[in-house]
């Protein structure tokens, strides 16, 4: 079997559309495998039918996103069809995650009226679709790993914030996502370097998984945990600050500088949200762990 990384002919082969399609599929499968290993390592349960929002995210939303990206990598599938699938998934995910919850219950047992439910689902779907579309557009205009790294940063912060708000399992769901996306991004860069191409392998799959993952963690944290709407929105929209490098003074800078600027801008709101989340954690959750009780006793004794 030919080793593509050592053979120049094989390197040229990688540059062909058919080989790139296969490589893209390999990246999608790699993301799926990485997530499966990560969630298994964290003892996440696999139950069918899924019982709660997190179960539905892991067993329906994530596999659906990966399947669409697998289809997107195929040569014969037109772009409009791929985007139709992506937007359909974006519109459906909020409904899937809320299935069977008090938000969708009718009558006195429900939290929302039908009108509120329809509005919330439409807004959430539009946010996911908008984020996905805008980041993909940016990725086409100015490709680079920085968008996926920004998504990793946002997902990691989202996970920590959800955990500090008291939903530990929901926050933990972010970690395999981040690890897998980082690994595939680094892998793609290495392959591109070894083959001498400018192609950004697995970019659309990584971006799709990053966007869906970020949305999923924040959505379950907001609607099933205690994450506030403002924090969730700030973290969801933070990766859009990657667009800041499209302004003329920054646009034609060196790629590493553009990437660094993007990450710095994305990190600013995330740091603010994390700081606020830590403050709330110290006030609300730390007493449950005994830390504040000790300090309160100390103050009382000293007072």
């Amino acid at each position: 079997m030919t080793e593509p990384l050592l053979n120049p002919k094989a390197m040229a082969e990688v540059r062909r559309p058919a080989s790139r399609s296969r490589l893209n599929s390999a990246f999608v499968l790699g993301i799926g495998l990485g997530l499966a290993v990560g969630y298994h390592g964290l003892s996440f349960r696999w139950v069918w039918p899924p019982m709660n929002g997190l179960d539905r995210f892991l067993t329906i939303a994530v596999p659906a996103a990966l399947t669409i990206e697998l289809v997107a990598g195929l040569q014969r599938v037109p772009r409009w069809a791929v985007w139709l699938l992506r937007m359909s998934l974006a519109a459906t995910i909020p409904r899937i995650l809320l299935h069977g919850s008090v938000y969708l219950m009718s009558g006195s047992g429900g939290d929302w009226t039908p009108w509120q439910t329809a509005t919330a689902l439409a807004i959430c779907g539009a946010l996911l679709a908008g984020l996905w579309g805008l980041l993909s557009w940016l990725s086409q205009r100015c490709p680079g790993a920085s968008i996926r790294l920004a998504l990793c940063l946002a997902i990691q912060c989202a996970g920590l914030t959800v955990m500090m708000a008291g939903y530990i399992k929901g926050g933990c769901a972010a970690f395999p996502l981040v690890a897998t996306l980082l690994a595939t991004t680094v892998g793609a860069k290495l392959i591109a370097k070894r083959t001498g191409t400018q192609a950004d392998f697995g970019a659309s799959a990584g971006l799709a998984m990053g966007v869906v993952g970020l949305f999923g963690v924040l959505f379950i944290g907001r609607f099933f945990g205690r994450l506030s709407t403002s924090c969730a929105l700030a973290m969801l929209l933070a990766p859009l600050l990657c667009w800041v490098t499209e302004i003329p003074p920054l646009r034609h800078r060196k790629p590493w500088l553009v990437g660094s600027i993007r990450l710095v801008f994305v990190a600013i709101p995330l740091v603010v949200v994390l700081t606020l989340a830590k403050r709330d954690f110290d006030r609300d959750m730390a007493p449950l762990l005994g830390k504040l009780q000790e300090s309160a006793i100390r103050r009382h004794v000293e007072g």
Partner: protein
Amino acid sequence: MRRYFSVAIIALVIGTVVRAGGKSASAADEYDYDTVHSSVSFKARHLDISWIHGRFNEVEGKFSLDRDDPSKSTFELTIKTDSVDTANEARDEHLRQPDYFDTKQFPTIEFTSTKTNAVEGGYEVTGDFTMHGTTNTITLILKGGKEHDFKGTKRVAFSTELSLKRSDFGFDETTIGPIGDEALIIIDCEGVRK
């Protein structure tokens, strides 16, 4: 005139017979759960060295007692998980989250009886207990059942204790650690006759 009078008398007799028959066919007395004089509380181990006590403040239910044929008696109880109260607001918020009760996904804990037997001092009630989206069959021993007439209102009270394992009801096993797997639920229920 006489004809109309006869029809009215017959209707009255038939109505009385039907009503009396209906009464005898449904001998069970129905009671509503009295929220003022009832409570559902629980306790669970903390770090396996102490007990955390709590209660559910919003409970609904009803039961019917057929004293002639106890097997026809039925019991229903619905507990709103969002009303969990352990006298610590931060802990209550934590308990409402998906790591524990997941109140947005599973807003109620429900018990519906399927079989009732009279036993000494009360009833042995078997039924479906649904918590955290998982239904298991459990058997309760309800102690009490004596009717008391207080200012014209008939009341019956029962009390029971049951021990449950959270892991049997789909609770995430990774959160079973600081708070023990086993929980003791104490139900004191007073019913007001309808």
